[in-house]
C-alpha cells in the first residue's frame, strides 16, 4: 500500500524543504518588521486605504501581533500563496504524467485508477503538513523571541483549519488535472481559478446584491485573522470545505475512470 504515495512524496522532499525555508524566512522578516512598526498610528493607516483592500486582505487589528501575522502572513501566504501553490501542484499531478506518457506505465501496474489517483493526491500531504507544522512552530518561537505573546492554541487552530481549505485547492487542481492532457494548461487553469475565486470573494463580499457569489469561493470559508486575534471560527465553514473536497475528489475519480489516456 501507498507505494506511489511514497515515491511521489520522496520526489517532493526537496521542493518542500525549500518552500518551508523560504516561508519561514518571510515569517521571520514579518515578525521583525512588527517590532519596527511599534508605535505607528494604525488609525491613520486604515483611513488611507480603500475599504475594498482592507476587506480583501483582512487588514484589521494590525496593532496586535495576532492581527499583524494574520494580515501579513496568513491572508497573504496561506490563503492566497499556498492556495495557488497547491492548486498548481495538483494541476500537474495527472496531466503531467499523461503529457509525458508516464501514465501508460503507471496504469499497467496492478493498481486501480482510483487508487492511483488517491495515492498521487496524498503525496501532496507532505508539503501540506510540513509547511503547517514547521512554519507554525517557527512563528511561535519568533513571536516569543521578540517578547510578544500569542495563544499557541490560536496558532494551532489557524494552521489546522487551513488544511481543509488547502485540500479544496488541491481538489480543484486534481479535477482540472484529469480533465486535460497537458500539465501547463491544468496548472494555469488551477491558478487562474483560485485567484478569480479569491478576488470574487473579496470584491463581491461588500456588494450586497451579489453577496451570494462569495459563497462559491473556498476562501470565504477560511479566515485566519479572527482566529489569531481571539480564536473565533465557524466549525460549519470547515465542514463545508471538507464536503467540497470530498465531492471534488469524487468528480475527479469519475472523470479519471472514464477517460482514455
Amino acid at each position, binding site marked *: 500500500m501507498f*507505494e506511489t504515495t511514497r515515491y511521489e512524496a520522496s520526489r517532493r522532499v526537496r521542493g518542500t524543504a525549500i518552500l518551508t525555508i523560504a516561508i519561514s524566512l518571510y515569517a521571520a522578516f514579518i515578525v521583525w518588521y512588527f517590532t519596527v512598526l511599534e508605535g505607528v498610528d494604525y488609525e491613520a493607516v486604515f483611513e488611507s486605504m480603500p475599504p475594498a483592500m482592507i476587506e480583501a486582505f483582512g487588514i484589521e487589528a494590525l496593532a496586535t501581533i495576532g492581527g499583524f501575522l494574520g494580515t501579513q502572513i496568513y491572508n497573504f501566504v496561506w490563503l492566497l500563496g499556498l492556495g495557488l501553490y497547491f492548486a498548481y501542484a495538483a494541476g500537474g499531478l495527472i496531466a503531467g504524467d499523461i503529457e509525458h506518457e508516464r501514465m*501508460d*506505465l503507471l*496504469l499497467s*501496474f496492478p*493498481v486501480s485508477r482510483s487508487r492511483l489517483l488517491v495515492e498521487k493526491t496524498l503525496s501532496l500531504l507532505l508539503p501540506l503538513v510540513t509547511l503547517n507544522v514547521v512554519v507554525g512552530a517557527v512563528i511561535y518561537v519568533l513571536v516569543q523571541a521578540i517578547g510578544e505573546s500569542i495563544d499557541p492554541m490560536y496558532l494551532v487552530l489557524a494552521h489546522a483549519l487551513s488544511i481543509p481549505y488547502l485540500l479544496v485547492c488541491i481538489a480543484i487542481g486534481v479535477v482540472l488535472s484529469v480533465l486535460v492532457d497537458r500539465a501547463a494548461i491544468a496548472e494555469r487553469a488551477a491558478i487562474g481559478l483560485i485567484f478569480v475565486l479569491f478576488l470574487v470573494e473579496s470584491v463581491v463580499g461588500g456588494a450586497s446584491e451579489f453577496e451570494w457569489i462569495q459563497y462559491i469561493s473556498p476562501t470565504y470559508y477560511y479566515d485566519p485573522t479572527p482566529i489569531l486575534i481571539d480564536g473565533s471560527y465557524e466549525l460549519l465553514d470547515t465542514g463545508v470545505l471538507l464536503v467540497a473536497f470530498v465531492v471534488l475528489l469524487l468528480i475527479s475519480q469519475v472523470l479519471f475512470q472514464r477517460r*482514455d*489516456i
Partner: protein
Amino acid sequence: MATIEVTDLTKDYGSVLGVDSVSFTVERGEIFGFLGPNGAGKTTTIRTLLGLLAPTAGTATVLGADVRDDGAFIDAKQRIGYLPAQLGFNEEVTGEQVLDYHASVKGDRRRDELLEIFTPPVERPIREYSTGNERMLGIVQAFMHDPELVIMDEPTAGLDPLKQEEFNEFVRSERERGTTIFFSSHVLSEVRRVCDRVGILRDGELVGLEDIETLLDQGGKRVQVETTDDLESALPALDGVVDVNSFADGVQFIYTGDYNTLLRELAAHDVREIEISEPPLEDVFMHYYGDGEPAQSGQEVESNV
C-alpha cells in the same frame, strides 16, 4: 483459454478510426509479432489491451480478464509486463529509484539477472540517459517481476544493433521459459527473426495473420542491380519478379521466386553493383495484402492540390 483474445475490436477517436474491427488470439507461450507501418493502429491496439483506452466496440480479454473492467483487470496486471513506446520516466530520479518504485508495486525477483544483460546506468539520473539506456531500463522493468505475458510496443527502437541482437536472443530464451510475448514492430526483419506468428495491421485493419514461415515465403527480397548490359528485358521471363522499376543505371524489383534461378540469370550478365535487401514493409503489404491503392498515394494527391 488464449492469453490474449481480441474480438472485433474497434477504436474510433472521432476524427480518425484507430483500429477497425480487429480480431486475433495469442496463445500461451508464443511470440506474437504485431507488424505494421507507423500509424497503422499498433499502439492503439496495445493501449486498448492494457485498458488505457476504452474500445468503441468489440471486446478483448488478457489473461482471462476483460480489459474494460478496471477492477477485474488488476489481478491480471500483476502477471503482465509492459514496455510502452514512450517511457517518460521522471527526469530527476535515478534508474535505481525508478526500479525501486516499480519493484515496490509489482516485485523484482529477476532484476539482478536482467541488469546483467541490459545495462542502463542505474545510479545516474534519467535526465542523463540516452534513448537506448532508457529503453533498456524499460525492458528491465517489464520483465523483472517475472510476468506470464509481456506486451511491448516497438521494443528495440533506439537500441544499438548489438543490444538489439541481445534483445532478440533474450526474447527467444524467454519463450523457452514459457513467457508469452506480444510485441509490435514496423521492421519486418526483426519480426521474422523472433516471432512464431505475425499479425499484420494496415490502416487500422488486420490484413494478415500468418505463421512466420508463410510470411518468409511471401515477403520476397528487394533486388537492386546495376549491369552494363540489358537485364530488364530478361526479367519478365523469370518467375516471381514483380514491381520492376528501372533507373538510369540499373533496375530494381521484388523477387519472391527461387534464389538459384535468379542467381543463374544474373550470372549471365555483367553485374557492376548489386544489393539484395528486405523489401520495405509498405511494399510487402501492397503486393501481398493490398487491395489496390497504397495508403500513401491518397496523401500525395492531396498535397498536390
